[in-house]
């Protein structure tokens, strides 16, 4: 190695602090007045491009998120008649026997959205029936979340839809039929373009 090559390497190493640590140097006042010695900068235990890969591969994760097409729905079924019993025992204390408890209204309000007194309910506002399964299964009953079986969730969903006259009284819902329920306000939303 010639002297000139060595000098170039030393020069390059001397530049390392500014090349590797521009953000740090800018953010610390007086950093320029205390330059690192050459030995500090030698092969580099310091790096700005450190990207640890700490994620542990996992093969299965219990997906609970139900999309509007319902492909993630678990197997099970429940009727509106069964749902009426579950609802009375587990839901009515907060939502009212008819789903019209003020503050926790589930039913009614269809046709009210464009009026001065809009009432947003499952029947008047919710665009997708699958969201009923997703939300009841993850977040209801309040204080006893995730305590309903899949059959009970289908049943309660059927009963809430019956309270809204979205389905007939003899309805039984399962993972195939729930996504087929067309909600009255299905076309009522404008999806803003995210920017």
């Amino acid at each position, binding site marked *: 190695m010639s002297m000139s090559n060595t000098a170039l390497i030393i020069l390059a190493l001397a530049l390392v602090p500014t090349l590797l640590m521009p953000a740090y140097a800018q953010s610390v006042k007086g950093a320029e007045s205390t330059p690192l010695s050459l030995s500090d900068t030698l092969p580099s235990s310091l790096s700005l491009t450190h990207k640890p890969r700490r994620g542990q591969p996992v093969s299965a994760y219990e*997906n609970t998120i139900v999309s509007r097409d319902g492909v993630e729905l678990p197997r099970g079924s429940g009727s509106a008649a069964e749902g009426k019993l579950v609802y009375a025992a587990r839901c009515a204390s907060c939502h009212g026997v008819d789903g019209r408890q003020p503050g926790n209204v589930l039913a009614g309000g269809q046709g009210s959205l464009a009026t001065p007194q809009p009432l947003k309910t499952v029947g008047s506002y919710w665009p997708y029936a699958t969201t009923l399964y997703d939300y009841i299964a993850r977040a209801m009953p309040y204080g006893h979340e995730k305590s309903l079986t899949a059959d009970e969730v289908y049943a309660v969903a059927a009963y809430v839809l019956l309270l809204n006259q979205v389905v007939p009284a003899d309805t039984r819902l399962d993972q195939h039929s729930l996504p087929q329920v067309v909600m009255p306000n299905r076309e009522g939303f404008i999806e803003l373009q995210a920017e």
Partner: protein
Amino acid sequence: MTQRTVDRRGFLKAGATVAAGSLVVPLLADDRVNRSVVAAPPGDYGQPSPFAPARREAISRHPFGAGAGASSTPLQLLNGTVTPNSLHFERHHSGIPQIDPAKHTLTIYGDVHQSLQFSYEDLLAYPLETHLYFLECSGNSYRNTLPDAQNATAGTLSGLVSGAEWTGVPLHYLLAEAGIKPNAKWLVAEGADASANTRSLPLNIALDNVMVALYQNGEPLRPSQGFPMRLFVPGCEGNISIKWLTAIKLQAEPAYTREETSKYTDLLKDGQAEMFSLRMGVKSLITTPSGLMTLPRQGVVEISGLAWSGHGSIRKVEVSADAGRSWVTAPLQSEPGPLRLTRFRLPWRWQGAPAILQSRAVDDRGNIQPSRDHALARYSPLGFYHYNGIQSWQVSAAGEVKNVYV
């Protein structure tokens, strides 16, 4: 000479100083006798002075479960742009879980090449970033959408906004490690609270400046802010910054969760509703003087307030003392920057006449804070999210300050 630096509305021009030394005031009674005897020793966790108490306001608890509720930052008691962690606003849908970080994981799954699970310790090993950001609940200031003006403090009216220094792992590190499949366009974030709160976020935002936040104002997140980890989506409605973050699923379309369909959507007058209105609009309010305060005397009053925008940085704040007929640009007196609270201040000479104080912010995208009427114009009368209308404070001849609509 002072007269020339005051314009007809009483605003002091930049550089004006108030003559000093014209008053001689008696010293306050001194209680320093034996102070060392009663002084407190160092303590393990600091507390504010009992002489400067501050409490969250407008604490609401759902009648069917106290865990679901909100509390507001007392904006009028604070200064600067950083909200102390103990006073940061809260909004919980199913209470505050106490989570042992050793038993908590974050899983990234769905449309990725390899599903990955991260522990709290794992995340601490990544390069962290630190930024000042505001966080605002989508329903902040909803009281000002009601038909009658509520006589309340700035904090009660608009304290569902706070500012903090957030430190966390840029989300793009973790998503890149899992490998984003080409069809993935959204993520769905899920919390580990009892309601397993879920929201969908477009990947173009998620890959921009979103972080998995671990620290707030230098200390590990409080449980009320998502300890051990939360999503933090700068500039967007607070509900999407999922607390107690435990899973992120990538997929082609949104999940259309209950939160983003039946709740955080904006009903318009024609009955249609806007969905995924994520950005918080440009907004400001005067915090001093503000509701329920009384000006102690005539003379120079320092008007001070906060401005922010979910679209970028605050470019300008104007102040009016005549209900918006004329405006004066107020100096911005905090470090400017995107998606953070900005403090403005402007001296005002109050000579005892009734006045209506307002502030109006403009961001660097050219968005201008609307009047109350304009802010409400498109929306259903009971739709109350994303309200960013101009706040009006009426100052009476007696110096009493109250919220009014103009």
